[in-house]
């Protein structure tokens, strides 16, 4: 049974929707950097925030008036994807669509605020308004309410590869349930100083504004945003292959696991382009090894130097980029690309592509891949 991409959506630091974000990336745009606020120590980190004006449409929903940023971002991307799929919010749609939400760090801002009140003021300071928004599935619940979904809503948690696992999960639902027509897969991330400092403890956070990929391994800069895709039974671009993901038990094994997994997922047919997950960390080395060995001439595009590492949203952003690359037959240039990977695409250009691979080397022991292709 074939599963197709019926629509894509996004809200990113470089655009309020998928098409505008894509156009900006193709023009070499780079997200504005801001110093993360609310530092708890003398360590500053930059991030790529989503401009507040991009969220004005999502913020008008009464249900979201107390919700966290993560819910607003997810809603904006979801509505964009539904519009791209020509689906309108209605009671009928609510009964025919499932939601799969990909989360990495969760609603970190509200969680931090809630726990901060407990840690500083004691348990009786805890806010009953904040607590429900700290739950991983709060954002999915809000989107289900807006779409009128009374059936399936799943929130999946994982590392920065979780978006691809969520797409696989969505494909499973469609494959198992003939009565289900669509599945909305959403990935979201909000930024917070706490998150960056946690990654810094792993030596994976860059202190400067920019980071290089496939070059100097200096850590990453975080970005926020959300990306969504509508999976369904009609369309021109299909999910040719997806996977639940494979774990690696040490960073040194990531390349080896990817080297075994990616060619299997890609299959025997030619891959015309790769949208990669390189982010200035060990992930770059793992991808370098796999791409130069298994896909030596396939052009590689990496969106993270332009928009930041958006963890729970990142592989869905990559997937949206891959879909739009196939749709527009164009590939953006990778900003801040180092010289360790010869096949990295450095300048925006037109391409002839019918099959794309999305790569994910997660920061916490997960590797995954996805193949998109024009249906035959």
């Amino acid at each position, binding site marked *: *049974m*074939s599963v197709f991409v019926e629509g894509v959506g996004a809200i990113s630091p470089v655009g309020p929707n998928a098409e505008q974000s894509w156009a900006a990336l193709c023009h070499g745009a780079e997200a504005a950097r801001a110093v993360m606020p609310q530092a708890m*120590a003398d360590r500053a980190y930059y991030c790529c925030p989503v401009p507040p004006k991009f969220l004005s449409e999502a913020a008008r929903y009464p249900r979201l008036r107390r919700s966290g940023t993560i819910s607003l971002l997810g809603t904006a991307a979801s509505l964009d994807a539904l519009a791209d799929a020509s689906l309108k919010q209605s009671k009928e749609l609510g009964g025919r669509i499932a939601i799969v939400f990909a*989360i*990495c760090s969760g609603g970190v801002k509200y*969680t*931090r605020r*809630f*726990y*901060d009140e*407990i*840690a*500083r003021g*004691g*348990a*009786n300071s*805890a806010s*009953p308004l904040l*607590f*429900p928004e*700290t*739950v*991983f*599935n*709060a954002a*999915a*619940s*809000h989107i*289900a309410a807006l779409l009128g*979904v*009374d*059936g*399936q*809503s*799943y*929130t*999946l*948690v*994982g590392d920065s590869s979780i978006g691809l696992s969520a797409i*696989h999960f969505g*494909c*499973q639902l469609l*494959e*198992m349930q003939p009565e289900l027509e669509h599945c909305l897969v959403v990935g979201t991330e909000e930024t917070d100083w*706490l998150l960056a*400092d946690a*990654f810094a403890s*792993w030596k994976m956070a860059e202190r400067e504004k920019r980071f290089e990929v496939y070059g100097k391994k200096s850590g990453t800069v975080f970005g926020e945003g959300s990306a969504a895709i509508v999976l369904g039974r009609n369309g021109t671009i299909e*999910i*040719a*292959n*997806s*996977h*639940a993901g*494979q*774990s690696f*038990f040490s960073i040194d094994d990531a390349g080896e696991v990817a080297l075994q997994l990616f060619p*299997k997922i890609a299959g025997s047919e030619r891959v015309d382009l790769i949208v990669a997950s390189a982010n200035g960390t060990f992930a770059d080395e793992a991808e370098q090894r796999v791409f130069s060995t298994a896909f030596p001439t396939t052009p590689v595009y990496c969106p993270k130097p332009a928009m930041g590492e958006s963890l729970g949203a990142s592989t869905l952003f990559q997937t949206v980029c891959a879909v739009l690359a196939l749709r527009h037959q164009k590939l953006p240039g990778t900003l801040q690309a180092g010289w360790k990977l010869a096949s990295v695409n450095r300048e925006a250009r037109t391409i002839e592509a019918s099959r794309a691979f999305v790569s994910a080397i997660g920061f*916490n*022991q997960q590797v995954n891949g996805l193949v998109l292709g024009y249906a035959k």
Partner: protein
Amino acid sequence: MSMPSERQTPNAERETPNAKRRVLVTGIGIISPLGPDAVENLNSLLNARDAVSPVTEFDVSKTRCKTAGHVPDAWLADALAPTRAASRLHRSSGMMAMALREAWTSARQPVPELMVIGTTAGGMSYGEIFYRRLLSGNSSRRQFPRLVANYLPQKAVLDAQQACGIRAPSQIIANACSSGSNAIGHAFDLVGRGLHECIACGGYDPLCELVFVGFDSLQAATPEKIRPFDVSRTGLVLGEGAAFLILESERSAASRGATAVAEVAGYGISTDTYHLTQPHPSGIGPRLAMERALASASAEPEEVDYVNGHGTATIFNDATEGIAISELLGQVPVSSTKSMMGHALGAAGAIEAVFSVLALREQFLPPNINFTEPDPSWKFEVVGNEARPAKIRCALSNSFGFGGTNATLVLRAA
């Protein structure tokens, strides 16, 4: 040939996905406040043990509720083998490793193609330590990397896998308190529809301060005894634990010579969007989940011999579940085993599925302790205070959570 955890169009070599197959439970594993394994949990159920005790892990001087169901550290220390892999284990992954190892062993060491796990808090307790150390300002950052790593829900799963020598892709569902049931339900669908042959599924959640204080702030937690389905119920207490089931097709079980202890026959899921933390008063959410589960099992309401209710003992949750059970199932025996061990959140659905398997295997009704008086608006019978023998062929296990996620499993005797 595609890998088992992979989907590939259009040439995947497997049975037609829409042909439903029987899904056997060939192994169970559990650690809960009622015991470190299935045998002890069974004894506790049969003896109506109350495993709720004062909280000592963190400061509860400013909370209304001061009790919870605990898994004693000694159970974890005794059971973890002194191996290199086990040295990575912490409380969350330790509980999970114990339950997973027991399920895997009792299923005669299958090779699961996939793990589907539910959790609510994940490694939040490690996030709490990280945050408090940051707040203190003068703490060494030497331990930060491990604290941060353990905060992530999938880290515990990977550590448990490594400790057990199991390497399988994992899907981790965080649908609040229905997570464990969702994990089992999704695994049931995958095996039942022919996408997988053998899956380890379950849930885990350790007790942590953030969640404890959160429920207290909502005034959902009680300073009294937890009394599910009682007219004088006043709220929940929290618990913790982990449980796993090995689900496999008949073909897979037969090929290994494994025997079934029960069968998962149906799964229903619904989303109630009335409010983030409150169910629709009509009970439509639970009712839809139960109806869909019965339809999935091709079962009629009168076939149900026992319901392991979600039964958190909060005013609203029990009211809506009570309405739904009364309207759909009538005079069925119902108990909430949370009365004995508290609410284990993302692990609850998996723990209660194991309890339901034990009830089906041993043919008894688990008790609903601390029970004094039924709510007169409901038709069903609460299995008050003592376990009792009964003929059970079909059981429902309900789990409902924040965000309006509702899940029901239908289990049958083997």
